[in-house]
């Protein structure tokens, strides 16, 4: 599927922004994934053409970064962190519960095409709200079985918006920093 004109235009703008057009590779891959949901070899060849670089270079870069998808996934992307700080607060139990709730194994997509889920050992940067999962780039923190049920139910709705809309309603109030520091002047 050829890239949309707006994406091509965006890629050309990117190439002009950086001191080196090669720096536009990762932003261009993001633009393609944003438009098509994943990045095919054909799309990489197109990026190469628009940037005037060999497509092997685009593929070499794309294959290094874990966030670029090479095949279509479900409408929603759910990632649950199982690194140590999350493990300490019950991430394994949440991952097991999510697996039962969705009825498909780690890395798979539900039969209705709504959700692809996987666990990750890569810390997502929400250890203070562990256990957590990332739903379409938005963090769901302080997970419980009930909250997982609510999130999954919403994501299964055919017209469910991306994670943003879902999270806005479910996010707990922002924690205020408790910054009490005592110091004595000599």
């Amino acid at each position, binding site marked *: 599927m050829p890239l949309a004109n707006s994406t091509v235009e965006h890629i050309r703008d990117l190439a002009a922004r950086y001191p080196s057009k090669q720096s536009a590779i990762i932003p261009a891959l993001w633009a393609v994934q944003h438009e098509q949901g994943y990045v095919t070899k054909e799309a990489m060849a197109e990026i190469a053409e628009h940037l005037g670089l060999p497509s092997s270079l685009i593929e070499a870069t794309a294959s290094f970064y*874990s966030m670029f998808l090479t095949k279509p996934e479900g409408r929603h992307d759910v990632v649950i962190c199982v690194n140590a*700080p999350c493990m300490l607060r019950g991430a394994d139990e949440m991952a097991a519960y999510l697996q039962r709730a969705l009825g498909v194994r780690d890395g798979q997509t539900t039969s209705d095409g709504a959700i692809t889920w996987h666990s990750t050992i890569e*810390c*997502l940067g929400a*250890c203070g709200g562990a256990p957590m999962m990332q739903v379409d780039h938005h963090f769901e923190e302080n997970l419980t079985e009930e909250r997982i049920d609510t999130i999954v139910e919403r994501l299964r709705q055919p017209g469910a918006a991306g994670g943003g809309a879902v999270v806005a309603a479910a996010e707990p109030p922002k924690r205020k920093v408790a*910054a009490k520091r005592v110091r004595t002047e000599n």
Partner: protein
Amino acid sequence: MPVKPLLTKDFATEGLAQLKVYERSGGYSGFKKALETQPDDLVELVKKSGLRGRGGAGFPTGSKWSFLPKGVYPRYLVCNADESEPGCFKDRYLIENSPHQVLEGILIASYAIGCNLAFIYIRGEYLPQHDALEAAIAEARQAGYIGRNVLGKGYDIDVILHRGAGAYICGEETALLTSLEGYRGEPRLKPPFPAIKGLYGKPTVVNNVETVCNLPHIVLNGADWFKAIGTPTGSGTRLWCMSGHVNRPGNYEMENGTPIRELIEEQGGGVWKNRKLKAFQPGGASMMVLLPEHLDVGLDFDAIQKAGSLAGAGAIVVMDETTCMVDAARRYVKFFHHESCGKCTPCREGTFWMANIFDAMEAGEAKPADIDLLLDIGYGIDGRSFCPLGDASTWFPRSVIKFFRDEFQQHISEKGCPFKKSVQEAVA
């Protein structure tokens, strides 16, 4: 006299992410003052303030700036927002609450080092934070803080926000620069250091988000004021990300030198469920384990190093008496294996080997000789890897073997994890 927090002092203000609100609470007055100052004087000011990099290594920021070779242009400033150390979530918090503070720090640093094009490299997972910074950059451009002839002072500056795509290694400064140039994010040999040959082969300074957030305050209040906060070798405050078995996890800004006990017990409300503290890490996944006897150590680079660990990126991971230390080490080793870029053999093969042994430990298939084998592998990786990722993969597991060897022996003799009945059916 109690000292108020610096970086987070206005975080309760509603709408602080907006330029108008940020300006009302004194925002951008540091940058305006900086523009009235000679760049070299700013470098001296930051040197004198004793500010040390908050990304992990604790290198003096002013010295880093002064390594740039005279007369070589263009030169670049890159703000490292690729926060990915397990346990660490402070940069995210700083960006979410006050993106303009980050930006103002970047502008001051850029002006001080004579840079006209700055970059922010933010991890791919932080999309809402990316959007917050993007909005802040647009507002700052509109207000004339970014662009040509900034505020009529004859200084040109542009800022490019660059999004990563899921690679922990890109937090290492040379890998970050390689990634920013569009390549696979593999580290480069040092020397030459980025100050001499960095982005696009030009002199480059890489500073962490929290580091640059300190700059507006130092410029406004002076080096002596900043130096009076904290310890003699650790000026200022730090944000500590607290997670794990603690009642109130979260970000806490503390004056350097404050005892760790105060952070965990008073701010964090102590260990959860009325349990006892077994161990903690003072600096995120990479760092060696500390024990309850270390609770009176100060929150400070040098004090923590003296105690046998490292403050790193400022992440306290609290572990209670029910924690399986073998499994905690297993997670981190698997993390480093997953994130190893594959460039050098000790890290690529060593982390894989260690991960296999740890899996065997949890599965009850490990042999008695495996404990010393882990130490051997660690010895083969540490100091022999291309970059600190490999080295750091060995620090926590080796420290856990040192202090909790009996737990490893128990895993072997009982053929499985003594702490858990059923283990990770859904875990990678």
